[in-house]
């Protein structure tokens, strides 16, 4: 004996299976996409990367993310303490070292080997060969890219630690204006702080802004007994030699006429 109530329920339940399944899948999609979207909105540019990865790994991952970064030579300004000479690996050798600052255009995701000479005598070594890896670019207005290069500043403290055998890693980031430090940054100087022990500096920099470059300073030296050490210089990737941006010309105040309009008050009688 069949129960009419059971049969009607079965038909009703059967008719609800498909829409319930679709609703469940849609809810899962919304939850997953929402969590991914919220994670993306938290500006975690390098959520799963670490600065201790080999040079070029973080930048290569950034290139895969897409955007107008492929083939773009990002202006970079390399500066060192007074008296030190700066050079770069080029065409199997090294460029003529210069004093002061060195301006170059570098590709993203490619490690560049920099040569620092004439270190103080109290250091363990008179030379140092750090690497510079550009992991993101800036978007300066047209014609102003060279005026706002990414500053790579080497200080004596980092070089002293590096020549002692330690690995110093610096992650340079663009400060978020909403979280900017109210301190004044002097020309040629760069605000910085330590990430702390057991902390990933890339992750710390990602929280404070947008990382754009990773600088690694160690005590490794090239082995040029049998010719140029291309492995040490990562194959001498291409880069652009840039000239220092010209200083802004002073524009004297024009001899403008005083305010004489009906919409604004006239010049007060002296």
């Amino acid at each position, binding site marked *: 004996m069949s129960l009419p109530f059971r049969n009607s329920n079965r038909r009703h339940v059967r008719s*609800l299976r*498909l*829409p319930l399944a*679709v*609703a*469940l899948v*849609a*809810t899962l*999609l*919304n939850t*997953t*996409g*929402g969590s991914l979207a919220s994670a993306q909105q938290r500006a975690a540019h390098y959520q799963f990367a670490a600065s201790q990865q080999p040079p070029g790994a973080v930048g290569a991952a950034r290139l895969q993310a897409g955007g107008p970064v492929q*083939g773009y030579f990002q202006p970079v300004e390399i500066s060192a303490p007074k008296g030190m000479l700066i050079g770069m690996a*080029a*065409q199997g050798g090294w*460029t003529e070292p210069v004093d002061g600052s060195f301006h170059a*255009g570098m590709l993203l995701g490619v490690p560049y080997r920099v040569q620092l000479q004439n270190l103080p005598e109290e250091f363990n070594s008179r030379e140092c060969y750090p690497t510079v890896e550009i992991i993101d670019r*800036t978007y*300066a*207005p*047209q014609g102003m890219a060279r*005026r*706002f290069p990414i500053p790579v*500043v080497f200080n004596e403290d980092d070089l002293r*630690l590096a020549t002692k055998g*330690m*690995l110093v*890693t610096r*992650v340079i*980031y*663009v400060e978020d*204006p909403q979280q900017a*430090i*109210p301190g*004044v*940054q002097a*020309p040629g100087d760069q*605000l*910085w*702080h*330590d*990430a702390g022990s*057991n902390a990933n500096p890339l992750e*710390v920099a990602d*929280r*404070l*802004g947008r990382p754009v470059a990773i600088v690694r300073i160690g005590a490794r030296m090239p082995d040029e007994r049998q010719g140029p050490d291309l492995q040490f210089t990562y194959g001498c990737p*291409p*880069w652009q*030699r840039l000239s220092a941006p010209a200083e802004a010309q002073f524009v004297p105040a024009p*001899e*403008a006429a005083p*305010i004489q309009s*009906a*919409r*604004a*008050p006239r*010049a*007060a009688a002296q």
Partner: protein
Amino acid sequence: MRTPLLSTLGRRLLALGMLTGLLALPACKAMPKAVVDLVAVRTQPAEVPPAPPAAEPPKSANSVQVLGVPKGKPVVGQPLPVVPRAGCEIQGGIPVPYLAASAWQPPGIKGPWPQDEFLHDGGDAYEPVGVSPEWRVQGLNVEDTVAHYDTIDGRTLVEPSNCAYVYAPRFSSVRSVVNASSSEFVDGPTKIRKPERVVNYEERTRVVTRTEQLQPIGQVANTKLTVYRRDQQSGVASTALLAHSFQQTFAPFEDLAVIRIGAMQSADKARLAERVESAIIWSKDDGVKVFIEKQSAKVVTGDKRAQAIYAVHEPVDGRLRICKIASTPAAQPGDFVDFTIRYDNVGDSPVGNIVILDSLTTRLAYEPDSAQSSRKAHFTTAHNAAESLELRWEIDEPLAPGDGGLVRFRCKVR
């Protein structure tokens, strides 16, 4: 009797599930790109057709030298080619936009722009600014620039200015020092070798006096008007700005009719469009608002427009228009930036008790004694939540219809 495949409830659930799934598609990274693009295309407005490529710019004396690239190979990595918008003329390879027909973005770069490279000052972001009957200003956030005034009928209105953008990125760095250590222990008599493997790294961190920046959790209190007259700078309660202390000459960046005489002229459209275009490029949400008085104009609808022109059909009460400009579009840390705020009564009745408020961002430090006003005003400063200052001008005299004034101040980019 044939039963329907889906009941009414089932059809409604199916429709709800499909709608939820469509809304989740753009946010879901796991979905195929084609599907995401399909949804994105349908939700975005029509794109501006690409314009013809720009003429090759003349070679400059400072040509770059690419090292490591064989001769004859095209040099990659040059600055992105400038593709002018439809209707732009090109002078010397540099496009000169003369009419912001629609929201324009450089080719190949999708928005939103990285706003972390720009300083914003102006407008009214986040919660709108309001003035209580007790003359207390609420909702004045960092980077806001507003003016509140009283009309004849007793209303207190608030008018935000446009947003002035200055390209001024600042770079900082985070350091970590790692020292790898390892040891090896050999057990001699039994000839068993037990190498010690590296367990962990010894990290040395030097003590520095730098403080680690903590992410702000938000504004927890609003500054109130009552402290403006008490919070003072170096013992000055308030500074009376007189008209004769106002610099009567205009700077080059103020060479706009809307700043000089408070009226819009056709000759300034090109320069204003350039500033408007920069504003669009640097922020998709804000835009410059320009009002043309007593001129019939078309109403532009849409969310992302550079300027809005409103038609005035009937006499209105006193209404204040406030416009803000910066002296330079880009600045480096240590540079000075001059800001000029122009206010005009574009209504048909006088307005009074005009107060102009400007809350500076952290990166802008007000230069003492640089405030000016073309009309007699009381100037005060107060500290804001961004370790900078809130600037306040209280215009003494009411403003008749058609009258206006200027206030200026200088800031140093930190």
